[in-house]
Structure formats: structure tokens, C-alpha cells
């Protein structure tokens, strides 16, 4: 693999950037792998990367039905934070946060991770009680956080309407300075390039149409392009498509797939250098380095696989943003799209073994899994390498919905993300 550096950039500029090496190979799959990862989103690619790099399992294929990162990974609004309420979730997301902090160096790929801070606004007394509680819980878990009053918020975001003249005045906020944003497609590409350089085969444009199961044990996958491919272990990381694959394996998951939308505006001058989220008015916004406002909100209430969302949801989202930032009312929106998110009843993921032996699922990240990409891949890789769930993953078993040990993160997940 060609090492990326400032010097390399200079060298390639002399040949008009026409001689860059391909970032990864485009191999024909082998007949058999130690591990097959189904789904080439951020989580699947991160899993493959850590499997090969950290756990020495290099006979690995990632099978992706479209192109790498074409699912939710490059459709999200890129918010990264780790201020979740419960210990299990805080530990998992903080594990990811620590990996984010060294990720560009580790991958030798600039994922543009920008720790510009994340504000979660409170508009009611109950919001503020929940925020106090969550920030205290965070600090006990070693996750940075502060409770801010409207004056302090105003200093961080001068253009936001922090007055009392709004329908839902801002009463305070939680503030996680280490939170921020990252460039989502670079995350997929960085992990892909890293995995490939350690020998992982990235198989694109190939759909897994079925799982081959013998005597309750998975032994491979069926594909639409290369027929059957054998594997000792299979990890499914297919987000909104998880229920469909689980059904092929003969079981149900506690998931529902919903469209979630995002929209970006025309580029404008720098106006917002942090991330603002509000559960109560239900919207969130940040500004990309290009200058466009990146906006998102809620899911459509019904199940859907159409990768598009409904108009009432957009309207609702934009209302919330204009309530917070009246000056944005004249900004024009450029693009809008949807992704299919796999929502789980307790707003926490499923990282789990399954009723089928050697078959593992990493799903249920719903509206907020981008922030966990490196951590999710890391613990899932450890689990696949050993055939036994990693300590941080254990509480996220799919069987928690049988024994009742749910991890209710609706408060911290809130408006999601």
C-alpha cells in the first residue's frame, strides 16, 4: 500500500495527480474464507480491518451488494459523541471515541475527525433533569460533559435564538467538547483501504442472497454473482436489511426498518462551528467544511425500505431548525436523501451470536451508529476472531429481549444520532 503523506502529495502534484495507486484491489472471491462479513458499510469494513490488523485473521472477505459505504455510512449526518446514559452504552461508545481520536493516524487516511463539540439542548424542566442526570452519569464513566446555562450556550453559538421569546425557550444544554463530526465516506474508504492492505478481499456489486446452514451451523453464503462461498464464520453487518437476512437464517430480530432523512443546504459562510441537537423541538444541525448546513431529524413512523422519506418529516425538521436559528429561514436546501435505519426497541444496538452457530449479527444501530463505527468494528472483530462475544459487546446480545435486560437509551439517543 502506498503511504499517504505531505511529501507524497507534493510528488504526485509534479505528475498532475495522474499516477495515484488504486486504494484497494477488486479481487475475484476465493472458494472459502475464515470469516465472511456481509455488508460493506463502515461497521463491516471496520470489522474486517481490525480482524486482519489486530487479530491476525486475514483470510477474510467483505461482500457488499452495492458499493462500499453506499448504505447508511455515507448517508448520515456524521455526528460523533459518546455521552450515553447507561454504563454498558457509555463504555461502548467511549471505546469508539478513543479509537476516533487516533483513527486518521492509524489508518494513514484523513477521516477529517473534528472535535468541535456537541450540544444537546434542553427546553423543559424534565429535559434539564435528564441532562443533569446524564452528564453526571457520563462523568462517573470518564466521559467528558458539562451542563451549560443559556448564557454559556449563547457564547458558543451566538446565532442561535437563546432568548425567552421562542415557543420552546432553551433552558440549558449538555456539552460534550470531545464530540464532533467526521467525514463519513472517508471513514468507509479508510477502513476499506486498510483492510485491503492487510489482505482482506473486498467484493463489491455482489449480493448475499441466502445463508448456507447445515445442522444449525452456518457454513457459507450464496451470492448472486459468484455462487456459493464457504466460511467458518459469518458476520452480518447489513443495517436496515438485517431482518431480511435473519429471516433467511430462520429467525426474527427485534428490529424495524424505517427511512431516516437528511438534507444539506447551499454552502454559506462559516456560521456554526459546533453541533447543535435538540430532542424537544426535534432537529439537529452542523455546518460542513464546505459550508453547507447538514440537517436531520426523525424517522418516518412506518416501516420502509425505499431509501426515501416523506415530505411531512422534512417540513417538521425544517420547522425545528428555523425555531432554533431564525436566520436560516432564507437558506435554500440543496439536496435531500434517505437511508434505511434498523431501529431497536431500547435504542441500543445488537452485537450478538444468534440461534445459528457461527453466525453473528451486528445491527440495530438505528439512527445513531456512525459514531460507533470504529468501536463496533473493533469489538465485533474480537468476537468473530475468538468465536465468543467481546466483554463490551456481551450486554448487547439479541437475547436481552428474552431475559428483559434492556438498555434503555431513548433519552440519550433522543432525536437520534
Amino acid at each position, binding site marked *: 500500500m502506498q503511504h499517504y503523506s505531505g511529501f507524497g502529495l507534493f510528488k504526485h502534484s509534479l505528475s498532475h495527480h495522474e499516477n495515484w495507486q488504486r486504494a484497494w484491489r477488486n479481487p475475484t472471491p476465493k472458494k472459502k474464507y475464515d470469516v465472511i462479513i456481509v455488508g460493506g458499510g463502515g461497521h463491516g469494513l471496520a470489522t474486517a480491518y481490525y480482524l486482519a490488523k489486530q487479530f491476525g485473521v486475514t483470510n477474510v472477505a467483505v461482500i457488499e451488494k452495492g458499493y462500499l459505504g453506499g448504505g447508511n455510512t455515507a448517508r448520515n449526518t456524521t455526528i460523533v459523541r459518546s455521552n450515553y446514559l447507561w454504563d454498558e452504552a457509555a463504555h461502548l461508545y467511549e471505546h469508539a471515541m478513543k479509537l476516533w481520536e487516533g483513527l486518521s493516524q492509524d489508518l494513514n487516511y484523513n477521516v477529517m475527525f473534528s472535535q468541535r463539540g456537541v450540544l444537546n439542548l434542553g427546553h423543559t424542566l424534565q429535559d434539564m433533569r435528564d441532562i443533569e442526570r446524564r452528564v453526571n452519569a457520563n462523568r462517573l464513566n470518564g466521559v467528558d460533559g458539562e451542563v451549560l446555562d443559556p448564557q454559556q450556550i449563547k457564547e458558543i453559538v451566538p446565532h442561535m435564538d437563546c432568548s425567552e421569546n421562542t415557543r420552546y425557550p432553551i433552558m440549558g444544554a449538555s456539552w460534550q467538547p470531545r464530540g464532533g463530526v467526521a467525514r463519513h465516506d472517508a471513514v468507509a474508504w479508510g477502513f476499506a483501504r486498510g483492510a485491503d492492505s492487510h489482505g482482506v478481499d473486498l467484493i463489491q456489486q455482489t449480493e448475499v442472497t441466502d445463508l448456507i446452514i447445515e445442522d444449525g451451523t452456518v457454513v457459507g453464503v450464496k451470492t448472486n454473482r459468484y455462487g456459493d462461498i464457504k466460511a467458518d464464520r459469518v458476520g452480518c453487518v447489513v443495517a436496515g*436489511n438485517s*431482518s*431480511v437476512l435473519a*429471516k*433467511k437464517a430462520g429467525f*426474527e*430480530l*427485534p*428490529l*424495524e*426498518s424505517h427511512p431516516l432523512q437528511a438534507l444539506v443546504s447551499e454552502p454559506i459562510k462559516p456560521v456554526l462551528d459546533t453541533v447543535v441537537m435538540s430532542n424537544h423541538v426535534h432537529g439537529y444541525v452542523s455546518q460542513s467544511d464546505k459550508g453547507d448546513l447538514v440537517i436531520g431529524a426523525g424517522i418516518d*413512523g*412506518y*416501516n*420502509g*425500505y*425505499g431509501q426515501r422519506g*416523506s*415530505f*411531512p418529516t422534512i417540513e417538521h425538521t425544517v420547522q425545528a431548525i428555523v425555531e432554533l436559528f431564525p436566520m436560516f429561514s432564507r437558506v435554500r436546501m440543496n439536496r435531500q436523501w434517505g437511508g434505511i435505519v434498523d431501529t431497536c*426497541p431500547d435504542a441500543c444496538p445488537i452485537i450478538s451470536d444468534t440461534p445459528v452457530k457461527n453466525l453473528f449479527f451486528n445491527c440495530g444501530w438505528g439512527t445513531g451508529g456512525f459514531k460507533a463505527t470504529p468501536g463496533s468494528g473493533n469489538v465485533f472483530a474480537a468476537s468473530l476472531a475468538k468465536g465468543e462475544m467481546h466483554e463490551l459487546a456481551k450486554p448487547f446480545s439479541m437475547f436481552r*429481549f*428474552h*431475559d*428483559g435486560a434492556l438498555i434503555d437509551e431513548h433519552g440519550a439517543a433522543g432525536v437520534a444520532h
Partner: protein
Amino acid sequence: MFHIYCPHCAEYREEEEFHASGQAHIARPLDPEACSDKEWGEYLYFRKNPRGIHHELWVHAAGCRKFFNITRDTQTYEIKEVYKIGEQPSVVAQSGNSK
């Protein structure tokens, strides 16, 4: 934007008047005390979530406030039929689809 026929009001109304309440035809176990943890957990949380034909419970929240069922394709979003609680759907998934 869906245009949904409410079988109670006998009228087409816009999506925003309605609220989707998830999978239809989920029967509450007759004797919850007799359920195993697995059975109870599956009743509460495990859902069909198909890509294709789905039977859903909807409520006309900003209208008559009554519940009814819809058969809808979750991929094309086409509404195949609307029917009242207690009735059975006439459009169902092909067997290939429900493998």
C-alpha cells in the same frame, strides 16, 4: 405523501392525519403468566419487518381516532388494501417472499 383511505370515515385523507402503529395481527397471549420469557419477549419485541408485503396497524389519529389495518409494500410503498380490525387481509406475500 400517502393518501390513505380510512375505512371508518369512508374517505381518503392525507398521511399526516394518521399514525403508523407497527405490525398488525399481534395477539396478546391469552395467559401471560403461562408464557416463557422467550414467548413473552417475542410477543413484546420481535417483529416481521419484511421487505415487501407487510400488514400494519394504523390509527386515524387526527380524524375519527379509530384503528384499522393496511396491507402495504414496504419497498414500493404501494398501499394494496385497507381493512378493519378483526378482518383478514386478502393480499398476502408469495411463499417465496415469506421463506
